[in-house]
Protein backbone atom coordinates (compact mmCIF):
# COMPACT_ATOMS: atom_id res chain seq x y z
CA UNK A 1 0.00 0.00 0.00
CA UNK A 2 2.99 2.26 -0.07
CA UNK A 3 2.96 3.52 -3.61
CA UNK A 4 -0.49 3.67 -5.02
CA UNK A 5 -1.03 5.72 -8.11
CA UNK A 6 -4.52 6.60 -9.04
CA UNK A 7 -5.33 8.18 -12.34
CA UNK A 8 -8.45 9.74 -13.54
CA UNK A 9 -7.54 11.83 -16.52
CA UNK A 10 -9.97 13.27 -18.99
CA UNK A 11 -7.77 14.95 -21.55
CA UNK A 12 -7.58 13.94 -25.18
CA UNK A 13 -4.35 12.08 -24.54
CA UNK A 14 -5.57 10.01 -21.66
CA UNK A 15 -9.26 9.34 -21.38
CA UNK A 16 -10.60 8.16 -18.05
CA UNK A 17 -7.57 6.11 -17.09
CA UNK A 18 -7.57 4.52 -13.68
CA UNK A 19 -4.79 2.28 -12.50
CA UNK A 20 -2.92 1.35 -9.38
CA UNK A 21 0.67 0.22 -9.07
CA UNK A 22 1.87 -1.74 -6.04
CA UNK A 23 5.37 -2.30 -4.65
CA UNK A 24 7.22 -5.46 -5.59
CA UNK A 25 5.69 -5.64 -9.06
CA UNK A 26 7.17 -5.12 -12.50
CA UNK A 27 4.70 -3.43 -14.85
CA UNK A 28 5.10 -3.19 -18.60
CA UNK A 29 3.18 -0.48 -20.42
CA UNK A 30 2.54 -1.28 -24.07
CA UNK A 31 0.70 0.47 -26.83
CA UNK A 32 1.05 1.93 -30.31
CA UNK A 33 2.82 5.24 -30.95
CA UNK A 34 0.94 8.20 -29.57
CA UNK A 35 -1.26 6.11 -27.31
CA UNK A 36 -0.38 8.19 -24.25
CA UNK A 37 2.34 6.04 -22.66
CA UNK A 38 4.79 8.87 -22.04
CA UNK A 39 1.97 11.15 -20.86
CA UNK A 40 1.05 8.49 -18.32
CA UNK A 41 4.61 8.55 -16.95
CA UNK A 42 4.65 12.36 -17.00
CA UNK A 43 1.50 12.41 -14.90
CA UNK A 44 3.03 10.03 -12.40
CA UNK A 45 6.08 12.27 -12.01
CA UNK A 46 3.89 15.34 -11.66
CA UNK A 47 5.36 16.94 -14.82
CA UNK A 48 1.82 17.40 -16.04
CA UNK A 49 -1.32 18.04 -14.07
CA UNK A 50 -4.44 16.14 -15.18
CA UNK A 51 -7.40 18.31 -16.14
CA UNK A 52 -9.66 16.02 -14.18
CA UNK A 53 -8.87 13.40 -11.62
CA UNK A 54 -5.88 13.00 -9.41
CA UNK A 55 -2.57 11.20 -9.09
CA UNK A 56 -1.67 9.84 -5.71
CA UNK A 57 1.76 8.82 -4.51
CA UNK A 58 1.17 6.84 -1.34
CA UNK A 59 -1.55 8.94 0.24
CA UNK A 60 -0.44 12.32 -1.07
CA UNK A 61 -1.42 13.93 -4.36
CA UNK A 62 1.76 14.23 -6.46
CA UNK A 63 0.95 17.87 -7.19
CA UNK A 64 1.19 18.71 -3.49
CA UNK A 65 4.73 17.34 -3.11
CA UNK A 66 7.87 19.32 -3.86
CA UNK A 67 9.89 18.27 -6.90
CA UNK A 68 12.66 17.18 -4.59
CA UNK A 69 10.33 14.96 -2.58
CA UNK A 70 9.00 13.34 -5.77
CA UNK A 71 12.56 12.81 -6.98
CA UNK A 72 13.37 10.97 -3.78
CA UNK A 73 10.54 8.55 -4.56
CA UNK A 74 10.40 8.29 -8.35
CA UNK A 75 13.31 8.00 -10.77
CA UNK A 76 12.75 8.32 -14.50
CA UNK A 77 14.89 7.06 -17.34
CA UNK A 78 13.50 9.15 -20.14
CA UNK A 79 13.41 8.58 -23.84
CA UNK A 80 15.38 11.68 -24.80
CA UNK A 81 18.90 12.02 -23.55
CA UNK A 82 20.45 14.63 -25.78
CA UNK A 83 23.20 16.31 -23.83
CA UNK A 84 25.01 19.35 -25.21
CA UNK A 85 27.58 19.90 -22.49
CA UNK A 86 30.68 17.77 -22.05
CA UNK A 87 30.06 16.53 -18.51
CA UNK A 88 32.11 13.53 -17.44
CA UNK A 89 30.17 10.28 -17.22
CA UNK A 90 30.80 10.05 -13.47
CA UNK A 91 29.50 13.62 -13.04
CA UNK A 92 26.33 12.70 -14.89
CA UNK A 93 25.81 9.64 -12.69
CA UNK A 94 26.49 11.74 -9.59
CA UNK A 95 23.58 13.98 -10.62
CA UNK A 96 21.33 11.09 -9.60
CA UNK A 97 22.24 11.91 -6.01
CA UNK A 98 20.98 15.48 -6.44
CA UNK A 99 17.73 15.00 -4.49
CA UNK A 100 19.68 13.46 -1.61
CA UNK A 101 22.42 16.08 -1.28
CA UNK A 102 21.68 19.37 0.43
CA UNK A 103 22.47 22.61 -1.37
CA UNK A 104 26.14 23.57 -0.90
CA UNK A 105 27.08 20.32 0.82
CA UNK A 106 29.50 17.92 -0.76
CA UNK A 107 28.65 14.34 -1.74
CA UNK A 108 29.04 12.02 1.24
CA UNK A 109 30.78 8.67 1.40
CA UNK A 110 27.42 6.99 0.84
CA UNK A 111 26.76 9.12 -2.25
CA UNK A 112 30.10 8.15 -3.77
CA UNK A 113 29.39 4.49 -2.96
CA UNK A 114 26.02 4.65 -4.67
CA UNK A 115 27.56 6.21 -7.78
CA UNK A 116 30.31 3.61 -7.88
CA UNK A 117 27.82 0.78 -7.46
CA UNK A 118 25.43 2.08 -10.10
CA UNK A 119 28.28 2.42 -12.57
CA UNK A 120 29.46 -1.12 -11.88
CA UNK A 121 25.96 -2.52 -12.26
CA UNK A 122 25.42 -0.86 -15.62
CA UNK A 123 28.92 -1.71 -16.81
CA UNK A 124 30.08 1.84 -17.39
CA UNK A 125 32.86 2.05 -14.80
CA UNK A 126 35.47 2.14 -17.57
CA UNK A 127 33.67 5.12 -19.14
CA UNK A 128 33.80 7.17 -15.91
CA UNK A 129 36.29 9.73 -17.14
CA UNK A 130 34.96 10.02 -20.70
CA UNK A 131 32.79 12.89 -21.84
CA UNK A 132 29.12 12.03 -22.10
CA UNK A 133 28.95 13.85 -25.44
CA UNK A 134 31.45 11.41 -26.99
CA UNK A 135 29.50 8.25 -26.21
CA UNK A 136 27.24 6.23 -28.46
CA UNK A 137 23.47 6.23 -27.99
CA UNK A 138 23.42 2.95 -26.09
CA UNK A 139 26.29 3.98 -23.81
CA UNK A 140 24.53 7.27 -23.05
CA UNK A 141 21.37 5.36 -22.19
CA UNK A 142 23.34 3.21 -19.78
CA UNK A 143 24.74 6.35 -18.11
CA UNK A 144 21.26 7.79 -17.71
CA UNK A 145 20.15 4.40 -16.40
CA UNK A 146 22.99 4.41 -13.87
CA UNK A 147 21.96 7.91 -12.83
CA UNK A 148 18.41 6.69 -12.14
CA UNK A 149 19.71 3.63 -10.25
CA UNK A 150 21.85 5.69 -7.89
CA UNK A 151 18.88 7.98 -7.31
CA UNK A 152 17.86 4.95 -5.23
CA UNK A 153 14.10 5.41 -5.28
CA UNK A 154 11.32 2.97 -4.46
CA UNK A 155 9.73 3.63 -7.85
CA UNK A 156 11.56 3.42 -11.17
CA UNK A 157 9.96 4.54 -14.44
CA UNK A 158 11.55 3.43 -17.70
CA UNK A 159 10.45 5.24 -20.84
CA UNK A 160 11.78 3.13 -23.70
CA UNK A 161 15.01 2.98 -21.76
CA UNK A 162 16.39 0.15 -23.88
CA UNK A 163 15.68 1.53 -27.34
CA UNK A 164 19.37 2.01 -28.26
CA UNK A 165 20.88 -0.73 -26.14
CA UNK A 166 22.16 -4.02 -27.48
CA UNK A 167 20.46 -7.25 -26.44
CA UNK A 168 23.16 -8.14 -23.91
CA UNK A 169 22.85 -4.89 -21.98
CA UNK A 170 19.06 -4.83 -22.24
CA UNK A 171 18.83 -8.30 -20.70
CA UNK A 172 21.42 -7.51 -18.06
CA UNK A 173 19.68 -4.31 -16.94
CA UNK A 174 16.17 -5.78 -17.10
CA UNK A 175 17.40 -8.69 -14.98
CA UNK A 176 18.91 -6.25 -12.50
CA UNK A 177 15.70 -4.29 -12.29
CA UNK A 178 13.63 -7.45 -11.88
CA UNK A 179 15.88 -8.52 -9.02
CA UNK A 180 15.40 -5.15 -7.32
CA UNK A 181 11.64 -5.55 -7.72
CA UNK A 182 11.66 -9.00 -6.12
CA UNK A 183 14.22 -8.44 -3.37
CA UNK A 184 13.79 -4.79 -2.43
CA UNK A 185 10.07 -4.52 -3.19
CA UNK A 186 10.61 -1.76 -5.73
CA UNK A 187 7.98 -0.74 -8.22
CA UNK A 188 9.08 -0.68 -11.84
CA UNK A 189 6.88 0.68 -14.60
CA UNK A 190 8.47 0.25 -18.00
CA UNK A 191 7.23 1.51 -21.35
CA UNK A 192 8.48 -1.08 -23.80
CA UNK A 193 8.04 -1.66 -27.50
CA UNK A 194 9.30 -5.21 -27.58
CA UNK A 195 6.31 -7.33 -26.54
CA UNK A 196 8.39 -10.44 -25.97
CA UNK A 197 10.94 -8.63 -23.84
CA UNK A 198 8.02 -7.31 -21.78
CA UNK A 199 6.51 -10.79 -21.55
CA UNK A 200 9.80 -12.24 -20.32
CA UNK A 201 10.27 -9.79 -17.44
CA UNK A 202 6.98 -8.21 -16.37
CA UNK A 203 4.53 -9.39 -13.72
CA UNK A 204 1.72 -7.30 -15.11
CA UNK A 205 0.92 -5.52 -18.34
CA UNK A 206 -0.99 -2.37 -19.16
CA UNK A 207 -2.16 -1.97 -22.75
CA UNK A 208 -2.97 1.55 -23.88
CA UNK A 209 -4.72 2.58 -27.06
CA UNK A 210 -5.97 6.07 -27.94
CA UNK A 211 -5.52 7.19 -24.36
CA UNK A 212 -7.57 4.41 -22.87
CA UNK A 213 -6.62 1.22 -21.11
CA UNK A 214 -7.58 -1.72 -23.31
CA UNK A 215 -6.32 -4.46 -21.05
CA UNK A 216 -4.59 -4.62 -17.73
CA UNK A 217 -3.60 -7.45 -15.43
CA UNK A 218 -1.22 -10.38 -14.97
CA UNK A 219 1.00 -10.83 -17.99
CA UNK A 220 -0.06 -14.45 -18.57
CA UNK A 221 -3.71 -13.45 -18.49
CA UNK A 222 -3.78 -10.31 -20.63
CA UNK A 223 -1.18 -11.05 -23.29
CA UNK A 224 -3.38 -12.80 -25.81
CA UNK A 225 -3.92 -12.91 -29.55
CA UNK A 226 -7.07 -10.87 -29.09
CA UNK A 227 -5.33 -8.13 -27.11
CA UNK A 228 -2.55 -7.82 -29.67
CA UNK A 229 -5.12 -7.75 -32.47
CA UNK A 230 -7.14 -5.00 -30.76
CA UNK A 231 -4.24 -2.84 -29.64
CA UNK A 232 -1.74 -3.16 -32.47
CA UNK A 233 -3.90 -4.53 -35.25
CA UNK A 234 -1.42 -7.32 -35.93
CA UNK A 235 -2.15 -11.02 -36.24
CA UNK A 236 -0.18 -13.18 -33.83
CA UNK A 237 0.03 -16.41 -31.95
CA UNK A 238 0.76 -16.40 -28.22
CA UNK A 239 2.07 -19.49 -26.46
CA UNK A 240 4.31 -20.60 -23.62
CA UNK A 241 7.89 -21.03 -24.70
CA UNK A 242 9.84 -23.52 -22.59
CA UNK A 243 13.21 -22.09 -23.58
CA UNK A 244 12.35 -18.52 -22.58
CA UNK A 245 10.21 -19.83 -19.71
CA UNK A 246 7.56 -17.23 -20.45
CA UNK A 247 4.75 -16.71 -22.87
CA UNK A 248 5.88 -15.24 -26.16
CA UNK A 249 4.12 -13.83 -29.18
CA UNK A 250 4.86 -14.74 -32.78
CA UNK A 251 3.77 -12.37 -35.49
CA UNK A 252 2.63 -13.06 -38.98
CA UNK A 253 3.15 -10.50 -41.71
CA UNK A 254 -0.07 -9.60 -43.47
Amino acid at each position, binding site marked *: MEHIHFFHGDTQVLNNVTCRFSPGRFYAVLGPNGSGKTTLLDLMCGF*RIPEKGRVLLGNDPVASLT*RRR*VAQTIALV*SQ*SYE*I*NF*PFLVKEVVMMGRH*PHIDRFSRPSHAD*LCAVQQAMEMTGITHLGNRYITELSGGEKQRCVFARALCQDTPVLLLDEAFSSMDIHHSFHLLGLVKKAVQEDKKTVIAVLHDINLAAGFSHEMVFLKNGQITAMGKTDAVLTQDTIQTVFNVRSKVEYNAYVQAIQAYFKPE
Partner: protein
Amino acid sequence: MFSSIPAAIPRGKTGFLVVLFSLLLLGSILVSLSMGYMKIPIQDIPKIVLGKLVGGGHDQSSMRATYETVLVDIRLPRILTCAAVGAALAVSGVLFQGILLNPLADPYTLGVSAGAAFGASIAIVLNLSSTLVSIPGFAFAGACATLFFVLFLSYSPGSPGGGLSSSNLILSGIIVAAILSAGLSFLKFIADEQVSVIIFWLMGSFASKTWPQFLLVAGVLLVGLLVAVFYARDLNLVSMGDRSAASLGVDVKKVTLILLVTGSMLAAVCVSISGIIGFVGLLVPHMMRFLTGPDNRKLLPISMLTGAVLLLWADTITRAVLPHEIPIGVLTALIGGPVFCWIFKKSRM
Protein backbone atom coordinates in the same frame (compact mmCIF):
# COMPACT_ATOMS: atom_id res chain seq x y z
CA MET B 1 37.36 1.44 -3.16
CA PHE B 2 37.09 5.06 -4.23
CA SER B 3 40.43 5.39 -5.89
CA SER B 4 38.71 5.34 -9.26
CA ILE B 5 36.31 8.12 -8.26
CA PRO B 6 37.95 11.32 -7.17
CA ALA B 7 35.69 13.71 -5.26
CA ALA B 8 33.07 15.18 -7.55
CA ILE B 9 34.37 18.70 -6.99
CA PRO B 10 38.14 18.92 -6.96
CA ARG B 11 38.04 22.25 -5.16
CA GLY B 12 41.78 22.55 -4.90
CA LYS B 13 42.14 23.23 -8.60
CA THR B 14 39.19 25.62 -8.79
CA GLY B 15 40.38 27.47 -5.70
CA PHE B 16 43.83 27.84 -7.25
CA LEU B 17 42.34 29.21 -10.47
CA VAL B 18 40.16 31.68 -8.55
CA VAL B 19 43.18 33.01 -6.65
CA LEU B 20 45.26 33.16 -9.82
CA PHE B 21 42.62 35.03 -11.81
CA SER B 22 41.90 37.38 -8.89
CA LEU B 23 45.58 38.33 -8.74
CA LEU B 24 45.58 38.75 -12.50
CA LEU B 25 42.59 41.08 -12.25
CA LEU B 26 44.21 43.11 -9.49
CA GLY B 27 47.45 43.37 -11.47
CA SER B 28 45.55 44.36 -14.61
CA ILE B 29 43.74 47.12 -12.73
CA LEU B 30 47.06 48.49 -11.44
CA VAL B 31 48.78 48.37 -14.82
CA SER B 32 45.75 49.85 -16.53
CA LEU B 33 45.65 52.69 -13.98
CA SER B 34 49.21 53.65 -14.82
CA MET B 35 48.58 53.68 -18.57
CA GLY B 36 47.06 56.52 -20.50
CA TYR B 37 47.74 59.99 -21.84
CA MET B 38 49.46 60.77 -18.56
CA LYS B 39 51.87 58.02 -17.49
CA ILE B 40 51.82 57.49 -13.76
CA PRO B 41 54.54 55.32 -12.15
CA ILE B 42 52.91 52.07 -11.10
CA GLN B 43 54.63 51.95 -7.70
CA ASP B 44 53.01 55.25 -6.69
CA ILE B 45 49.47 54.20 -7.55
CA PRO B 46 48.49 52.29 -4.40
CA LYS B 47 49.83 55.15 -2.26
CA ILE B 48 47.96 57.86 -4.18
CA VAL B 49 44.67 55.99 -4.48
CA LEU B 50 44.65 54.81 -0.87
CA GLY B 51 45.73 58.24 0.36
CA LYS B 52 42.88 59.89 -1.51
CA LEU B 53 40.27 57.33 -0.53
CA VAL B 54 41.26 57.36 3.13
CA GLY B 55 41.28 61.13 3.01
CA GLY B 56 44.75 61.90 4.32
CA GLY B 57 46.08 64.32 1.69
CA HIS B 58 49.38 65.49 3.25
CA ASP B 59 51.40 65.91 0.12
CA GLN B 60 49.92 68.95 -1.60
CA SER B 61 52.30 69.34 -4.54
CA SER B 62 50.44 70.20 -7.75
CA MET B 63 51.74 67.15 -9.60
CA ARG B 64 50.42 64.90 -6.86
CA ALA B 65 47.03 66.63 -6.93
CA THR B 66 46.73 66.12 -10.69
CA TYR B 67 47.65 62.45 -10.34
CA GLU B 68 45.01 62.11 -7.67
CA THR B 69 42.31 63.66 -9.84
CA VAL B 70 43.25 61.61 -12.88
CA LEU B 71 43.42 58.35 -10.96
CA VAL B 72 40.53 58.60 -8.54
CA ASP B 73 38.04 60.69 -10.47
CA ILE B 74 38.68 59.58 -14.04
CA ARG B 75 40.55 56.33 -14.47
CA LEU B 76 39.46 54.32 -11.45
CA PRO B 77 35.68 54.59 -11.99
CA ARG B 78 36.11 53.81 -15.68
CA ILE B 79 38.35 50.83 -15.04
CA LEU B 80 36.23 49.39 -12.25
CA THR B 81 33.00 49.89 -14.21
CA CYS B 82 34.59 48.15 -17.16
CA ALA B 83 35.75 45.21 -15.05
CA ALA B 84 32.33 44.91 -13.40
CA VAL B 85 30.56 45.00 -16.78
CA GLY B 86 32.92 42.34 -18.14
CA ALA B 87 32.26 40.17 -15.09
CA ALA B 88 28.49 40.66 -15.28
CA LEU B 89 28.34 39.86 -19.00
CA ALA B 90 30.36 36.68 -18.45
CA VAL B 91 28.12 35.53 -15.57
CA SER B 92 25.07 36.31 -17.66
CA GLY B 93 26.56 34.31 -20.54
CA VAL B 94 27.09 31.26 -18.30
CA LEU B 95 23.46 31.44 -17.15
CA PHE B 96 22.07 31.76 -20.68
CA GLN B 97 24.20 28.96 -22.09
CA GLY B 98 23.09 26.67 -19.27
CA ILE B 99 19.38 27.48 -19.50
CA LEU B 100 19.19 27.43 -23.28
CA LEU B 101 21.12 24.11 -23.38
CA ASN B 102 23.34 25.73 -25.90
CA PRO B 103 27.05 26.44 -25.44
CA LEU B 104 26.72 29.12 -28.14
CA ALA B 105 24.00 31.23 -26.51
CA ASP B 106 24.83 34.69 -25.15
CA PRO B 107 23.27 37.33 -22.89
CA TYR B 108 21.60 38.99 -25.86
CA THR B 109 19.86 35.85 -27.13
CA LEU B 110 16.54 36.92 -25.64
CA GLY B 111 16.67 40.29 -27.36
CA VAL B 112 17.80 42.23 -24.30
CA SER B 113 20.32 44.20 -26.33
CA ALA B 114 17.82 44.99 -29.08
CA GLY B 115 15.35 46.19 -26.43
CA ALA B 116 17.98 48.36 -24.78
CA ALA B 117 19.09 49.78 -28.10
CA PHE B 118 15.51 50.61 -29.02
CA GLY B 119 14.88 52.25 -25.65
CA ALA B 120 18.06 54.30 -25.82
CA SER B 121 17.30 55.40 -29.38
CA ILE B 122 13.86 56.63 -28.39
CA ALA B 123 15.46 58.71 -25.66
CA ILE B 124 17.97 60.09 -28.16
CA VAL B 125 15.41 60.82 -30.86
CA LEU B 126 13.11 62.54 -28.36
CA ASN B 127 16.10 64.61 -27.31
CA LEU B 128 15.96 63.54 -23.71
CA SER B 129 19.73 63.15 -23.63
CA SER B 130 20.18 66.49 -21.87
CA THR B 131 19.10 64.93 -18.58
CA LEU B 132 21.85 62.46 -17.78
CA VAL B 133 19.73 59.59 -16.50
CA SER B 134 17.37 59.26 -19.38
CA ILE B 135 19.37 57.27 -21.94
CA PRO B 136 20.44 54.50 -19.53
CA GLY B 137 16.98 54.63 -17.96
CA PHE B 138 15.23 54.20 -21.28
CA ALA B 139 17.69 51.49 -22.31
CA PHE B 140 17.01 49.57 -19.11
CA ALA B 141 13.25 49.94 -19.50
CA GLY B 142 13.51 48.74 -23.12
CA ALA B 143 15.56 45.72 -22.08
CA CYS B 144 13.13 44.77 -19.30
CA ALA B 145 10.06 45.22 -21.49
CA THR B 146 11.65 43.01 -24.15
CA LEU B 147 12.57 40.31 -21.65
CA PHE B 148 9.09 40.11 -20.20
CA PHE B 149 7.50 40.12 -23.63
CA VAL B 150 9.76 37.25 -24.71
CA LEU B 151 8.92 35.31 -21.56
CA PHE B 152 5.22 35.97 -22.12
CA LEU B 153 5.54 34.80 -25.72
CA SER B 154 7.22 31.50 -24.85
CA TYR B 155 5.23 30.76 -21.71
CA SER B 156 2.63 28.02 -21.93
CA PRO B 157 1.29 26.76 -18.61
CA GLY B 158 0.40 23.29 -19.87
CA SER B 159 3.84 21.93 -20.68
CA PRO B 160 6.29 20.39 -18.19
CA GLY B 161 8.83 23.21 -18.07
CA GLY B 162 6.19 25.92 -18.30
CA GLY B 163 7.00 26.22 -22.00
CA LEU B 164 10.25 27.96 -21.14
CA SER B 165 12.10 25.41 -23.25
CA SER B 166 15.24 26.48 -25.02
CA SER B 167 13.78 26.37 -28.51
CA ASN B 168 10.72 28.40 -27.48
CA LEU B 169 12.88 31.01 -25.80
CA ILE B 170 15.40 31.27 -28.63
CA LEU B 171 12.65 31.58 -31.26
CA SER B 172 10.75 34.19 -29.27
CA GLY B 173 13.98 36.11 -28.71
CA ILE B 174 14.80 36.09 -32.41
CA ILE B 175 11.32 37.23 -33.42
CA VAL B 176 11.24 40.09 -30.92
CA ALA B 177 14.81 41.16 -31.74
CA ALA B 178 13.94 41.23 -35.45
CA ILE B 179 10.93 43.47 -34.83
CA LEU B 180 12.96 45.76 -32.59
CA SER B 181 15.81 46.05 -35.03
CA ALA B 182 13.35 47.13 -37.72
CA GLY B 183 12.04 49.68 -35.22
CA LEU B 184 15.59 50.79 -34.58
CA SER B 185 16.21 51.29 -38.29
CA PHE B 186 13.07 53.40 -38.44
CA LEU B 187 14.26 55.53 -35.51
CA LYS B 188 17.61 56.05 -37.21
CA PHE B 189 15.76 57.02 -40.38
CA ILE B 190 13.74 59.74 -38.66
CA ALA B 191 16.56 60.84 -36.34
CA ASP B 192 18.27 63.29 -38.75
CA GLU B 193 21.46 64.63 -37.20
CA GLN B 194 20.88 62.60 -34.02
CA VAL B 195 21.67 59.42 -35.95
CA SER B 196 25.37 59.65 -35.13
CA VAL B 197 24.52 59.81 -31.40
CA ILE B 198 22.50 56.61 -31.76
CA ILE B 199 25.26 54.86 -33.64
CA PHE B 200 27.89 55.86 -31.10
CA TRP B 201 25.73 54.79 -28.21
CA LEU B 202 25.13 51.39 -29.82
CA MET B 203 28.83 50.74 -30.23
CA GLY B 204 29.45 51.07 -26.53
CA SER B 205 31.93 53.06 -24.48
CA PHE B 206 33.34 53.32 -20.99
CA ALA B 207 34.48 56.92 -21.42
CA SER B 208 33.50 59.24 -18.55
CA LYS B 209 32.03 56.61 -16.30
CA THR B 210 31.36 57.76 -12.77
CA TRP B 211 31.48 56.19 -9.32
CA PRO B 212 27.67 55.90 -9.01
CA GLN B 213 27.57 53.99 -12.27
CA PHE B 214 30.24 51.61 -11.00
CA LEU B 215 28.39 51.09 -7.74
CA LEU B 216 25.20 50.30 -9.65
CA VAL B 217 26.85 47.67 -11.84
CA ALA B 218 28.81 46.24 -8.91
CA GLY B 219 25.68 45.96 -6.79
CA VAL B 220 23.71 44.20 -9.50
CA LEU B 221 26.70 41.96 -10.22
CA LEU B 222 26.92 40.95 -6.57
CA VAL B 223 23.23 40.09 -6.31
CA GLY B 224 23.30 38.30 -9.66
CA LEU B 225 26.35 36.27 -8.71
CA LEU B 226 24.83 35.22 -5.40
CA VAL B 227 21.62 34.07 -7.09
CA ALA B 228 23.59 32.27 -9.79
CA VAL B 229 25.84 30.46 -7.32
CA PHE B 230 22.83 29.55 -5.18
CA TYR B 231 21.24 27.77 -8.15
CA ALA B 232 24.46 26.59 -9.81
CA ARG B 233 23.89 22.90 -9.15
CA ASP B 234 20.28 23.12 -10.33
CA LEU B 235 21.56 24.86 -13.45
CA ASN B 236 23.88 21.90 -14.10
CA LEU B 237 20.84 19.64 -14.17
CA VAL B 238 18.73 22.07 -16.20
CA SER B 239 21.51 22.13 -18.80
CA MET B 240 20.93 18.38 -19.26
CA GLY B 241 17.34 18.96 -20.38
CA ASP B 242 13.96 19.72 -18.79
CA ARG B 243 12.72 16.22 -18.22
CA SER B 244 15.84 14.81 -16.64
CA ALA B 245 16.25 17.90 -14.45
CA ALA B 246 12.64 17.63 -13.29
CA SER B 247 12.96 13.90 -12.61
CA LEU B 248 16.04 14.61 -10.50
CA GLY B 249 14.13 16.97 -8.26
CA VAL B 250 14.71 20.40 -9.81
CA ASP B 251 11.75 22.76 -10.00
CA VAL B 252 12.62 23.53 -13.61
CA LYS B 253 10.07 26.28 -14.15
CA LYS B 254 11.11 28.20 -11.06
CA VAL B 255 14.86 27.82 -11.55
CA THR B 256 14.65 28.69 -15.26
CA LEU B 257 12.59 31.79 -14.60
CA ILE B 258 14.76 33.05 -11.74
CA LEU B 259 18.00 32.51 -13.63
CA LEU B 260 16.65 33.97 -16.88
CA VAL B 261 15.55 37.12 -15.10
CA THR B 262 18.88 37.29 -13.23
CA GLY B 263 20.93 36.86 -16.41
CA SER B 264 18.83 39.35 -18.33
CA MET B 265 18.96 41.95 -15.55
CA LEU B 266 22.74 41.66 -15.49
CA ALA B 267 22.87 42.14 -19.24
CA ALA B 268 20.30 44.95 -19.16
CA VAL B 269 22.23 46.96 -16.57
CA CYS B 270 25.47 46.46 -18.51
CA VAL B 271 23.90 47.55 -21.78
CA SER B 272 22.28 50.60 -20.27
CA ILE B 273 25.56 51.70 -18.67
CA SER B 274 27.99 51.01 -21.46
CA GLY B 275 26.12 50.23 -24.68
CA ILE B 276 26.16 46.95 -26.53
CA ILE B 277 29.34 45.01 -25.96
CA GLY B 278 29.30 41.70 -27.77
CA PHE B 279 31.30 38.50 -27.53
CA VAL B 280 32.29 38.75 -23.85
CA GLY B 281 29.20 36.88 -22.72
CA LEU B 282 29.50 34.38 -25.55
CA LEU B 283 33.21 33.77 -25.65
CA VAL B 284 34.35 33.83 -22.02
CA PRO B 285 32.09 31.03 -20.69
CA HIS B 286 32.79 29.04 -23.84
CA MET B 287 36.58 29.31 -23.42
CA MET B 288 36.52 28.76 -19.67
CA ARG B 289 34.54 25.56 -20.14
CA PHE B 290 37.68 24.04 -21.64
CA LEU B 291 39.47 24.92 -18.41
CA THR B 292 36.90 24.02 -15.76
CA GLY B 293 34.48 21.67 -17.51
CA PRO B 294 30.77 22.40 -17.75
CA ASP B 295 30.12 22.35 -13.98
CA ASN B 296 28.57 25.78 -13.33
CA ARG B 297 29.80 25.87 -9.74
CA LYS B 298 33.35 26.19 -11.09
CA LEU B 299 32.47 27.93 -14.34
CA LEU B 300 30.69 30.89 -12.75
CA PRO B 301 33.51 32.35 -10.61
CA ILE B 302 36.21 31.67 -13.18
CA SER B 303 34.18 33.16 -16.05
CA MET B 304 33.37 36.20 -13.97
CA LEU B 305 37.04 36.96 -13.27
CA THR B 306 38.11 36.26 -16.84
CA GLY B 307 35.34 38.44 -18.24
CA ALA B 308 36.53 41.29 -16.03
CA VAL B 309 40.18 40.90 -17.05
CA LEU B 310 39.47 40.58 -20.77
CA LEU B 311 37.10 43.52 -21.05
CA LEU B 312 39.43 45.63 -18.92
CA TRP B 313 42.28 44.95 -21.34
CA ALA B 314 40.12 45.65 -24.35
CA ASP B 315 39.15 48.98 -22.82
CA THR B 316 42.74 49.77 -21.84
CA ILE B 317 43.87 49.11 -25.40
CA THR B 318 41.33 51.48 -26.87
CA ARG B 319 41.91 54.08 -24.12
CA ALA B 320 45.66 54.10 -23.72
CA VAL B 321 47.36 52.15 -26.50
CA LEU B 322 45.57 53.08 -29.70
CA PRO B 323 46.25 56.57 -31.01
CA HIS B 324 42.54 57.25 -31.24
CA GLU B 325 39.86 55.78 -29.00
CA ILE B 326 37.62 53.36 -30.91
CA PRO B 327 34.28 52.15 -29.53
CA ILE B 328 34.72 49.21 -27.17
CA GLY B 329 31.85 47.23 -28.74
CA VAL B 330 33.62 47.37 -32.09
CA LEU B 331 36.92 46.32 -30.56
CA THR B 332 35.48 43.30 -28.71
CA ALA B 333 33.74 42.19 -31.89
CA LEU B 334 36.90 42.66 -33.96
CA ILE B 335 38.99 40.64 -31.49
CA GLY B 336 36.30 38.26 -30.26
CA GLY B 337 34.86 37.35 -33.66
CA PRO B 338 38.02 35.82 -35.12
CA VAL B 339 38.90 34.14 -31.81
CA PHE B 340 35.44 32.63 -31.79
CA CYS B 341 35.81 31.40 -35.38
CA TRP B 342 39.08 29.78 -34.42
CA ILE B 343 37.67 28.02 -31.34
CA PHE B 344 34.56 26.96 -33.21
CA LYS B 345 36.56 25.44 -36.05
CA LYS B 346 39.10 23.83 -33.76
CA SER B 347 36.51 22.28 -31.46
CA ARG B 348 34.95 20.32 -34.29
CA MET B 349 38.07 18.88 -35.81
